[in-house]
């Protein structure tokens, strides 16, 4: 038992605590006057290790496969498709599977590029479109950071879960004792 205790305590000091979970992350930005969607993403195990040469399948909302590609050595991938909603699916051969949904509505705003030459002032609507476009490009890396933060297995979670494990066995003991007495 001391050995087992040692293993439990030792594991708290391991710097790399990874969830053993395959994940795919992607963000998109409009290109070609917002007719197409440039999607960049990565495939990785939660906690950080990238998964190179993983097969990726891109499905339309109807569930048809529209494009297949592989991640590069660093687990990154890039593709361009007409603006629409897509689902990215990654499957490994040993039973891992991960999905990510791309929503075109939240990422693309058709910018109005043909500003009338006779009027140097741009309308309120054009202005807000341009801001939205800029903003989308700016927050893309930020959303990646948030995603990374959420993936980290948190020490509070681990300690809490161990508490639940002992609690469950404690409840079971109590149940047993009530039955026998």
């Amino acid at each position, binding site marked *: 038992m001391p050995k087992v205790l040692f293993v439990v305590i030792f594991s708290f000091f391991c710097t790399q605590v990874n969830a053993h979970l395959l994940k795919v992350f992607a963000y998109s930005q409009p290109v070609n006057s917002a007719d197409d969607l440039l999607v960049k993403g990565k495939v990785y195990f939660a906690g950080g290790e990238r998964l190179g040469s993983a097969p990726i399948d891109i499905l339309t909302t109807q569930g048809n496969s529209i494009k297949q590609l592989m991640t590069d050595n660093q687990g990154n991938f890039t593709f361009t498709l007409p603006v629409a909603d897509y689902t990215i699916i990654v499957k490994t*051969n040993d039973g891992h599977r991960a999905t990510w949904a791309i929503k075109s509505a939240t990422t693309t705003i058709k910018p109005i590029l043909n500003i009338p030459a006779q009027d140097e002032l741009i309308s309120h609507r054009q202005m807000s479109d341009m801001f939205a476009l800029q903003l989308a490009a700016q927050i893309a890396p930020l959303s990646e950071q948030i995603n990374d933060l959420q993936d980290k*297995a948190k020490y509070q*979670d681990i300690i809490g879960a161990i508490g639940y494990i002992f609690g469950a066995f404690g409840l079971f*003991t109590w149940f047993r004792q009530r039955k026998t007495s």
Partner: protein
Amino acid sequence: MAHIPEGVVSTPILILGIIGAGLAVSYGLKKLDNDKIPQAAMLSAVFFIASLITFPVGPSSIHLLFNGLMGLMLGWAAVPAIFIALVLQLMFFGYGGLLVLGVNTFNMAFPAIVIAIFLRPFLLQQLAQNRIPSRRFAITIGAAAGSIGIILTTLLLSASLVFSGQEFAPMLNVILATNVPLMIIEAVVTAFIVSFLVRTSPSTFNVVTN
């Protein structure tokens, strides 16, 4: 590897897994002796933690399982211990899924049952003769438990995937590449733990006195 996520396994396998796991857990709870409860809780926590420490190997990542060790130490009681750890891993970290919980429990607990039935009696017999088993014996039985745990889990995992319609050949390549090193590591670690426990506190293995 060992935790199959939702949406991979076909419905008949899901149902089989739920039935198998349900029977095994209820029988395991029946066999869980009052004296063994703290040990079961402790090993459940070890199992829970072991899955969080992963190593990248080839095209996948691996982690220790300890289901061999649990089978050797707890016998049938390893099944509810594994089940509870899997439930907590699902709730806290999203490993596996609710519907495949049965399949995952069965894949990891069945090897523990096999070890409890076929290997544990040898160890208990040695301990019952009231002498400390030789170091070689402890290391052998520990290594056997560790490797059998991984081999059987791998076989069950492959079977669950194959019967769900996955192609066999590419899967076999990945699984062999990742699970052979895992089997060796698990055998070494389990052998080390068992030989240590047998020599320092043999009562850990046979608190059941009936």
